[in-house]
C-alpha cells in the first residue's frame, strides 16, 4: 500500500455547517473520501492510501486542481482508494466539498 500526503493553503475557508462527510465506497475502480472540518483557517490536507504505485504525479495534479476549483480551506480529507480513475477521484472530491458546503 502506498500513502501520499498533500498540504495546501486554499483561497478561503470552506463555508457551510457540516463538520463531517463521507462519500463513496472502497470498491474496484471506486474510492472512499472522508472530509472533516478540523483544520485551522484555510489549511487543507489530503491523505491518500492507495494500492497502486507510480501515480504520484497524477494524484498531485488531481488534488491541486480540486483545491483550485473548490477552495476547501479547513478540511482534512482522507482517501481510501480502490484503484479509481483520476476523473472519478476528482468527482468524489467535488461531491464531498459540495456536501460540506451545504447549509
Amino acid at each position, binding site marked *: 500500500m502506498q500513502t501520499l500526503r498533500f498540504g495546501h493553503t486554499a483561497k478561503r475557508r470552506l463555508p457551510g455547517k457540516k463538520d463531517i462527510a463521507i462519500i463513496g465506497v472502497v470498491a474496484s*475502480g471506486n474510492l472512499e473520501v472522508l472530509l472533516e472540518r478540523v483544520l485551522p483557517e484555510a489549511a487543507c490536507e489530503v491523505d491518500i492510501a492507495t494500492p*497502486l504505485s507510480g*501515480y504520484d*504525479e*497524477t494524484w498531485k*495534479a*488531481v488534488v491541486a*486542481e480540486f483545491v483550485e476549483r473548490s477552495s476547501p480551506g479547513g478540511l482534512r480529507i482522507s482517501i481510501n482508494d480502490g*484503484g479509481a*480513475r*483520476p*476523473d*472519478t477521484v*476528482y*468527482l468524489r472530491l*467535488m*461531491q464531498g466539498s*459540495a456536501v460540506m458546503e451545504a447549509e
Partner: protein
Amino acid sequence: MADWQSEQRARDGRLAAGSKFAAGKMVAPNDTTALLEAVIRPKDRICLEGDNQKQADFLAACLAKADPKVLHDLHVVQSGIVLPEHIDLFEKGIAKKLDFSYSGPQSHALPRVLRSGKVELGAIHTYIELFARYFVDLTPHVALTVARSADLAGNLYMGPNTEDSPAVIEATAFKGGIVVAQVNEVVDKLPRVDIPGDRVDFVVVAPKPFYVEPLFTRDPASITEIQILAAMMAIKGIYAEYGITRLNHGIGFNTAAIELLLPTYAEKLGLKGKIATHWALNPHPTLIPAIESGWVKQIHSFGSEVGMDAYMRARSDIYFTGRDGSMSSSRMYCQLAGLYATDLFIGSTLQIDLNGNSSTVTADRIAGFGGAPNMGSDAHGRRHPSEPWLKAGREAVDGRPQLMRGRKLVVQLVESFSEKMVPVFVEKLDSLELAEKFKLDLAPVMIYGDDVTHIVSEEGIANLLLCRTAEEREQAIRGIAGFTDVGRRRDRKMVEKLRERKIIRRPEDLGINPLDAHRSMLAARSIEDLMHWSGNLYDPPNKFRNW
C-alpha cells in the same frame, strides 16, 4: 474454342459430388463434413457466416473436422473470425489465406496464429468493403450460411437475424458458387422467404439451434455518473445544437446513457420531436424507454438482438418488419443508411491521438474494424443537404465559399481513462507498433482524425470543425484529455483562448453542473426496468437476469 461457361460446369460437378450425401437438398448432420469435402475444392474462397452475431456454428465445426489432405489452402473471405473453429481451420492447415473484417472474440488468438505462419493475411476490411469485394475480386466459391428454418425447396427464413446473408448469398449464387445452409428446423411453409430456394443448394438441420451472442445489450446498472455527464453534454452541446434527427449510435455504455437520458434529461430540455427521431441502429434494449415515450419514428437495423423479437413484433410501426410480422435486418443496407442518410455518428473508442485519429488496437490484440470506419466517416459522395450537415460544413470553412459541401457529424464519446487506468488520449497510437510487428501496409485506424468533427469527454466537448491549424487541433484535444499525460501537458493559455472561441466547451459553458449527473436521471436503471418499460415484451437473456 474458348470456354465461356466453365464456372457452370464446375458447379455442376460439385453439385453432383455433393448430391451423394443429400436427399434433394437435405443433408443429414452426420454427412455434413463429407458433403463439405465434396463441394469445396482446395484453394476455394469460402465464407462461413456470420460476423459478430449469428454464427453457422455447426457448419464451422463440421468444416474444422475435414481432412486437410482433401481440403487445404482455402481462402477464408468472411466478415467474422469469431468461433474457435475459425482459428482451427488455420491451425489444421485447412485454410491458408484470410481476408476478414471483425475478430473481437478471437482478438488474442489471431495474432498468435498469424505469428505461427499459418495465416497469409490479405487485408483487414470493414464489413461493407468486404461485401463489396464479393462482387469484384473476392467472390466466394462456397457460402456456408445459417437460418432459422428452411422448407424442402431450400427457401430460407432468418427472421430478425437476416444480417449479412442476402449480400453473401447473392454474390456466391450468381457467380457459380455453392450455398449450404444450417437451419434449426425444416417446415412445410415458412413465415416469409428471406432467401429464395434457387440460391440454396444444400440444407442441414443442425443438432442445436444456432447461437447468437447478445452484443447490443448494456445493463443500465453499470452506467456511471461520469458516463451520464458526458451524455448530457452530447445531448445539449451537440444533438440540440445541430438539431440531430437522423443518427447512428455505436454500441457502448456511453451511448446507452444517451439513449436512457432522452425521456428524462432531453425531455426537460424540450427536445422531444426535435432530435433522435430516425435511427440506423441495432435493436438496443436501452432505447426502449425512448421508444415507449414517443421519441422515435423509425429504426432500421444492421442485425438483431437476443430477447427483442416479441417487442419488435409488437412495435412494427418502429422497426422494419416483414409481412410475417417479424423484423428484418440488413447489414449492407443499414451501413449505407449510416453513410448517406444520417447526420451524426457517435461512438466510443480505446485510443485517440493528437490529430483525432482513433483506434481500438492494442499491441497484442487484433479485433479488426467491423462497421465503425464507415459509420464514422464523412461520406463525400453525399449531395442532399440537411440543416445539421450544412451547419457543420459551414463551421469547417471560413467565410462563405461559393462551392460548399456539408459535413456529417462524427463524434467520439470517451472517458479520458478507460477501465484499467489506461489513458484513452495518447501521443502515439499503439496501432503503429502493431503494424510494425505484423508487417502491415497500414497501421489500423478505426476513424481518421480528419473525419472526426467532435470529441466529448467528461471534461468537455472539443469541436474540431472550428480548428484551423494542427496546433489548435492538438490543444483542443489536450484541453479535454482530463488528467492523462496528454491532458496535463496542455498549453493552459491556449486552451483558455480555444474556450473563448467555443472550440472547447466545458460543462459549465453548456449550463451543466457536473454534480447534477446522477443515475436517477436514467429512464431505466436496470435490465428489469427495461423489461417493465416494454410491458414485459422484452425478454432479457439469462445472463442479464438478476431477479
